[in-house]
């Protein structure tokens, strides 16, 4: 087989890659250099004007990005802590182990948008059951229209929805760990806390980092929960980057500008996730 034949076999894969990955990104970059909007729907060329506007005259985007960082880091941290705890709980032989393993996975199997509608109904400030119950104590928090509580509600729904995913990855990790380090710790006289600190956690570090990064990537795209639950409100209190890009692109039809936002957002996410991954490796894989 000569050299050219190899490319012939690679061609279908390359074409698919080009079609689904490179072309959309390339088109987004090109679109970001145009002023395409509902008034002037054409692929003109305006240079870096959209980017200049983004960096000099769009405080709202950066505020949304700050909010996204807060929401995604908080939710993923909580998902990790809760997911790890649940995984540790059903890792060892316990009564109804299989039942609990399935139970903890149920939220992940539900449709996010539908579950968010249910959560919105729960937390509805005048009609929802949560405030109905709390009214007995003369408390009726503004779950969706207070700046702070709206963020809390978004975090709560996200944690409920996606902790099972973290649980699943971490449980799979725990089940794949070798048993000798645990036996050695037991022989050395280590109790459960020392065994966790010196054996379980270090052994789980690579899996934990992978799980955290996967969830951070997903959490940074948070859109449906915000859209259904608060629509970014009250005001812009829960507006995240992706929701803001959605508003600019699909509500205000500023396609050129929203493409610039998307591309900038992509670059920032790649850089920040790389930095986060490096920090996590440094923090969690101390021995190496």
């Amino acid at each position, binding site marked *: 087989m000569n050299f050219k034949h190899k490319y012939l076999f690679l061609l279908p894969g390359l074409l698919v890659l080009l079609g689904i990955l490179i072309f959309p990104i390339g088109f987004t970059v090109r679109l970001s250099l145009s002023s395409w909007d509902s008034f002037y729907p054409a692929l003109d060329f305006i240079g870096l004007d959209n980017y200049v506007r983004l960096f000099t005259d769009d405080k709202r985007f950066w505020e949304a990005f700050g909010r996204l960082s807060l929401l995604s880091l908080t939710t993923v941290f909580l998902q990790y802590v809760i997911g790890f705890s649940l995984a540790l709980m059903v890792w060892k032989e316990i009564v109804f182990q299989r039942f609990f393993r399935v139970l903890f996975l149920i939220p992940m199997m539900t449709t996010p948008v539908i579950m968010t509608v249910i959560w919105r109904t729960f937390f509805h400030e005048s009609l929802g059951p949560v405030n109905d119950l709390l009214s007995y104590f003369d408390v009726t928090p503004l779950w969706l229209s207070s700046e702070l509580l709206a963020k809390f509600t978004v975090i709560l729904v996200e944690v409920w929805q996606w902790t099972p995913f973290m649980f699943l990855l971490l449980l799979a990790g725990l089940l794949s760990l*070798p048993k*000798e*380090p645990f*036996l*050695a710790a*037991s*022989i*050395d*006289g*280590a*109790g459960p806390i*020392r065994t966790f600190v*010196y*054996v379980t956690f*270090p052994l789980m570090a690579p899996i934990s980092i992978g799980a955290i990064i996967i969830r951070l990537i997903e959490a940074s795209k948070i859109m449906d929960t915000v859209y259904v639950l608060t629509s970014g409100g009250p005001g812009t209190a829960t507006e995240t980057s992706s929701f803001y890009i959605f508003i600019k692109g699909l509500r205000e039809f500023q396609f050129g500008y929203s493409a610039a936002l998307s591309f900038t957002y992509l670059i920032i996410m790649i850089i920040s996730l790389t930095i986060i991954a490096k920090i996590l490796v440094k923090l969690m894989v*101390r*021995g*190496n």
Partner: protein
Amino acid sequence: MAKIELQNIAHSYNPQAADKAYALNPFNMTWVDGGRYAILGPSGCGKTTMLNIMSGIVQPSEGKLLFNDVDVTKLSTSERNIAQVFQFPVIYGTMSVEQNLAFPLVCRNFEKAVIVAKVQEVAGALSLEGLLKKSASKLTADQKQLISLGRGLVRDDVAAVLMDEPLTVIDPDLKFRLRRQLKEINQKYRSTLIYVTHDQNEAMTFAENIIVMDAGSIVQVGSPSELFERPKTTFVGYFIGAPAMNFFECKLEGSHNVSFGGASIITETDLSKTGEATLKLGIRSEYIRIVETAGINTIKAQVQRVEDLGTHKLVSAIFDNQNVKIKVKRDQEVPLDSVSLEFPARHCCVYEKEQLI
């Protein structure tokens, strides 16, 4: 250190089944305090199960385990005060070498001064002094394995150090050094060392006593020379020695004689009480001599091939459709056609139903 007794110990992984299969058949065994033992056998023979029963990882389905006459059968691993070195080095990667060695003492709330002194002592014995401040995860596989061993030795009250094929991941040249270190440690601390391996060379060079196992049973316990000279079963004869012992189907001929292929072989074994007419004659390839003329206890075999193995030559011959292997010195000339082989009587072992008579 402790005397370890296994009383009618047996283990089945399905003890409730009507026709339960034993991974370890019932047996009795005593490990003398300060002894150096090797458990040797092919994969799946039950040697790791036996080790795990002693360490508490596996609860035996039958029998009792005594440490210094105290029943520890139901005690957990940590309550038994044993140390175990696994096939692959187990270290605490987030700790330094010093912290690793100190860990069993820290867990048992020893005073700091005692911990420091003990760690220094063990590090000295294992030649790890220069590495104490280094991160344990940065060490080589053999150094990590030494740390695993060191964690067992820092405790004075440890009943025994159990090792499950600990040198598997070690380079051949380092294996020799580590085995020597293990022997020195055994002599220095008088710790009972129990070493599981499937490598007969490791067992023979390390242990004072070897326990040979096959299919869940102990087939022979003895010193390396006993196992080599007088294997109790044909299995031990095959398993110990390289090449394996030569075995020949033979017939009973007299009170000390057997014959095969028309040749009569005199042995030092009293065969007068033997009921079986068909026996097996076993002799090590090291003890068969090539002689110039046929005489008493000789056979005339056809040489098949001669292999130079560096330290010696291995001659493969055939007699009466049975293979014979002979080890000779490198400089010895070997005829390439027929050859007379002498079987010295004192090295001939006779087996009835695979058991040494």
